[in-house]
């Protein structure tokens, strides 16, 4: 046991300081897609996207990040309009805010400052319950990573709990398959108020790639979703960003 203690101490500190300090994604990280030019779309532009994330309305391009699985087909076929952005903070408090081409993204550094203050002002800890409603399994790895020493969300007072009755946040991955619908609804029903629901990942935001009409079009078809975290899968920092937005919702509740 002593050896383990020495080993643990010898590793030093690896934990991120996010959200008090920014955490930059490595160059080339496929975190999100930017819409560089929304004007004068050519005919058939929307057909590039396998999940229907690209739409044309009123002669303008709309990019729905809640549907984007980050496959990069648009970046390859229309590089003058679409580009990968190496960013982690992709969560939003409304489904509409994930659609680029309308209002553009808010001031990210300012938002991060707000998040940091929120964590500082946290009056109590937040308990998170995870439910897989039909993910591809990568989301679970990224959610589990939040507890590893690099992210260590316990330092922010965020803990994972086994009991839905003790949970403040329901973190849902997957687009909701039929057999998971009832268990998911039950997990939500037994939670106390106030509570927040996070849709983790593109499948949870919109149903994503899933198949032959079996899967619902995302968690919002089943439960009231407060925070959407797109990504295929969303990175641990993106998930943490989403959790902090959910903390804000809980703090605002009476």
């Amino acid at each position, binding site marked *: 046991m002593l050896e383990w203690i020495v080993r643990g101490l010898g590793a030093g500190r690896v934990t991120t300081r996010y959200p008090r300090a920014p955490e930059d994604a490595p160059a080339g990280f496929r975190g999100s897609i930017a819409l560089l030019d929304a004007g004068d779309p050519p005919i058939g532009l929307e057909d590039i996207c396998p999940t229907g994330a690209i739409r044309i309305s009123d002669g303008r391009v709309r990019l729905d990040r809640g549907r984007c699985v980050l496959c990069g087909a648009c970046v390859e076929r229309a590089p003058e309009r679409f580009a990968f952005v190496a960013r982690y903070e992709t969560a939003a408090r409304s489904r509409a805010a994930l659609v680029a081409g309308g209002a553009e993204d808010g001031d990210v550094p300012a938002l991060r400052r707000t998040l940091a203050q929120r964590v500082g002002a946290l009056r109590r800890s937040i308990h998170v319950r995870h439910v897989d409603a039909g993910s591809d399994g990568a989301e679970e790895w990224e959610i589990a990573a939040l507890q590893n020493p690099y992210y260590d969300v316990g330092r922010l007072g965020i803990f994972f709990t086994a009991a839905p009755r003790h949970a403040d946040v329901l973190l849902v991955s997957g687009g909701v398959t039929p*057999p998971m619908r009832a*268990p998911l609804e039950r997990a939500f029903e037994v939670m106390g108020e106030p509570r927040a629901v996070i849709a983790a990942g593109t499948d949870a935001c919109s149903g994503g790639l899933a198949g032959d009409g079996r899967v619902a079009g995302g968690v919002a078809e089943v439960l009231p979703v407060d925070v959407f975290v797109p990504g295929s899968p969303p990175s641990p920092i993106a998930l943490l960003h989403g959790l902090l937005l959910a903390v804000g919702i809980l703090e605002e509740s009476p």
Partner: protein
Amino acid sequence: MRGVVEPSPPGELRVRVPLGMLDRGAALLTEHGGRFVTLLVAERPERSLIAVFAARGELVCLRAVLDREARAFPSLSLVLPAALWAERELFERERIEPLGHPALEPILRPDADEIAPWVQGDEAFVLPYGPIRSGVFEAIQFVIDTAGEDVLALRTRPFFKYRGLEQRFEGASPQQGACIAERVAGIASVAHGLAYAHAVERALAIEPPERARWWRVVYAELERIANHLDVAVREAEAAALVVGQARMAILKEDVLRLQARLTGSRFARGMVIPGGVRAEGAVALAALSAEFDRLERQLRRDRRLLLRTTSFTDRLIGSGALDRPTVEAFGGVGPVARGSGISTDARFERPYGAYDRVGFEVITRDDGDAMARVEVRFGEIAESLHLLRQAIDRLARHDGPLWVELPSVAGAALGWAEAPQGELVYWVELDGDQIARTRIASPSLRNWLLFAESFRGDVLTDFAFIEYSFGLTPAGADR
């Protein structure tokens, strides 16, 4: 029995048999050391039922033509328990009945609340575990008959996550198909991308360029290391070994971060495409090599410490033991099979990509318990690092193109790859520049059939250790 050998791509042997003889063909292949892989309905060259077996360095396909009236075939499950779930799935999806199947119940639409005990008795009660479990887990349900501590009987209920992804391939371009394959089982994105790409390439009779094959080795072996470390993280967590868990989690995170720097994705998505790879890895080869050295150094110390910690090893030794005949009967693959002394590895038996030009050892253990499976995984991490070094060496010495154009022709073939969970097989039918049909035989589904068999005198508190030692993913099983 009379079968007609048909023209087949290399590594595949297609034998046409009458539908009524499928069970006898299967029995014959099994007697000669064949391992059941999957049952699937193909549409090309004509509507057929294909039973796939792995035998002597080839995948043998017993192909029986399905005419309009064909509604049933003799069940293989009677002689081959490995086919139990595959036949139930086939019946539900294709309405073709395996005659004589011992328990032909629906499997694709599980109901979390529909639970009946198997074991009757004063003391016995039934304990449903899942589909939502305490902790961060994928959805799957276990139904445990117990008298308090002993596990009397265990049933595994998959398909809570059945997403119908195989249908999603239909009409997609070969390149779009790669994006779907990577999202069938996210933690084995590269393996799925590879098995799919191999099937497309074999159907079109093309070969990816040499450089692409070496990069594929890099992405696939890093994925394997991350998966095996994930098993170590979970086992250490189950043993309440806090520092051990943290150390393994740090190393796993390091590997995912390296993938992200290399490919832009922590799961190396978007790199493997039919015909080659999309891009060079974005880390200089010398820097990559230094990362491997660092990983190996750290891992060597942590691994030694972990396997010397008795509070860890005591929980694994003797838990969830599987003997070799059981694994063979149920068609087990991957580290589960190798932990029971079966030297099976698709990279070695049916080498694909660059694996016929590298040296590596297939790690096996004979004990068949959770400890054996964990030891196999640690052994494989060392072999993967060895493979990574060989790939880097080749990439440094040779330059060349990364992909070839795909011809627009029709074709159908199997493709395979050794995923971290075991042998993964794709069947892909192409119609010009569209995917017409895809079927996936995942290692997770096949190994989960074995999970219940591994409880022989084990108690409830062993459950987590045994489950994690299998290292499976419900997403991959359910598709």
